[in-house]
């Protein structure tokens, strides 16, 4: 895909050309599906989120100024759509900071951190993330994968900056333990 081809289809989308819209849809669908999959493990829901996200892309494509990355612009829309969808499905799920399993794991905080394996697959990470509460999962995804600041996370999830930082720390700790203990992704000493 050349840059020129992309510009052509973006202009086509701005004119409402269906062929250009189909090209963009098919080109970015899988990538955006993977983005949304980090926020919820339910494939049907992810499919809905991606459809809703692309609808926003096509109806607001005039707002794209061509100054930034088109992929980054679409990704931003998809993340926002996913956050809204999770909030809609689980009221106040994103504001919760309680996680009983994490509290259980926090007892081993002062123990020596286990060594993680050099690499892990996406599926393994997704399995670990699925065990996080929606609040921790959202903060972890926004900060680690989507490069949001704590201020932006706080504003988006309607929580304080301190809560965002706290949730991120707890989410990291839990992910690490899940990867090591549950999936055995550790280096044998």
């Amino acid at each position: 895909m050349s840059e020129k081809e992309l510009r052509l289809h973006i202009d086509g989308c701005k004119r409402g050309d269906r062929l250009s819209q189909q090209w963009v849809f098919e080109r970015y669908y899988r990538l955006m599906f993977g983005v949304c999959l980090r926020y919820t493990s339910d494939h049907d829901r992810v499919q809905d989120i991606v459809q809703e996200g692309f609808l926003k892309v096509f109806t607001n494509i005039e707002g794209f100024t061509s100054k930034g990355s088109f992929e980054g612009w679409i990704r931003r829309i998809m993340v926002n759509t996913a956050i809204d969808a999770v909030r809609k499905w689980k009221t106040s799920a994103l504001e919760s900071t309680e996680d009983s399993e994490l509290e259980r794991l926090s007892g081993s905080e002062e123990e020596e951190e286990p060594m993680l394996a050099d690499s892990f697959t996406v599926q393994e990470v997704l399995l670990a993330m699925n065990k996080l509460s929606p609040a921790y999962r959202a903060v972890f995804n926004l900060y680690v994968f989507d490069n949001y600041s704590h201020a932006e996370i706080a504003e988006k999830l309607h929580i304080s900056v301190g809560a965002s930082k706290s949730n991120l720390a707890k989410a990291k700790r839990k992910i690490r333990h899940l990867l090591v203990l549950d999936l055995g992704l550790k280096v044998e000493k």
Partner: protein
Amino acid sequence: MSENLNWIDRLRQSFENFEPKVEGNWNAMQKRLDVSGYSASELDMVRRVKAARRFAYGASVVAAGLALWMVIPEVAEQELLGTELESSLVEARERENGIISEDAEASAQKVHDAISDVHPSNYHSEGLPLKLDPALIERSYDAGVVQLDPDVTARTTTTFILNLPEMTVHAQAPVEMKEEFTVADVEVNKRNEEGSRAEGDRISATGSLEVESEKGAESANSASAKSNLEMTAAEEAGFNISVQEACAGTEVSFALNGMEKGHPCSGTLVMVDFLSRNPLLISTKMQARMTLQFRCVLQETGPLGRDQWKT
């Protein structure tokens, strides 16, 4: 250990270019787009609507600016007029107080003009019961507080000395005491005039007043008969309803000469309520060695004639 610290980076790397093996349903997407109505023509329409909205906003701003441009000078003009009126009144007041020695006619005319300029409809000089005929004005000797509210009523306390006609006062009761007096000084103080007629004008006059009075005038046969008599007398004297309404609230202060030396008196005739059912209710308080209260009918017999008095 360093690898262990960067496990977050390794997480990120694992998700780079992650594309699950799924296929998007373009037909479903196209249906949603069709339902949303975002075809090419629709987008053009949206674009035009946005442009029209921008144009409407601009036109609104321009219209508001024009409106302000037209309104603000008018307000400034009114403020300037109010300032001129105030300065005229202050000047007139100073003149009346003797600070500026100038005849009262000029100052009164100035106030009159100023009031008329501000609210001509509120200053009906023609309807004044006591019209300030410049020919009658001789000099000014009294100055009170000037209260001018052009929105409600115009008030002046400019005092004029008029050559009033001779007047005759008749009582309705049987005559037990009949005296003829000469009015030395008569002050007509008109108050509480509804509308925006000049209030507080005090008029001193010289003339003669003939009074036919009777003690116990209030002991007339019946109230209705008394009322009828009073109404008849008032109409005969030229005080028809319109004149009575115009004269309501007028006070006439006077001093009577010609009585016995032991009983000089002065008093005030107050036209209390011409608007009441009893159209002629004039009470007079004699303030002297004796105090009398009686109703009376005023008749002018002086050289100025009825018309001038009625004004």
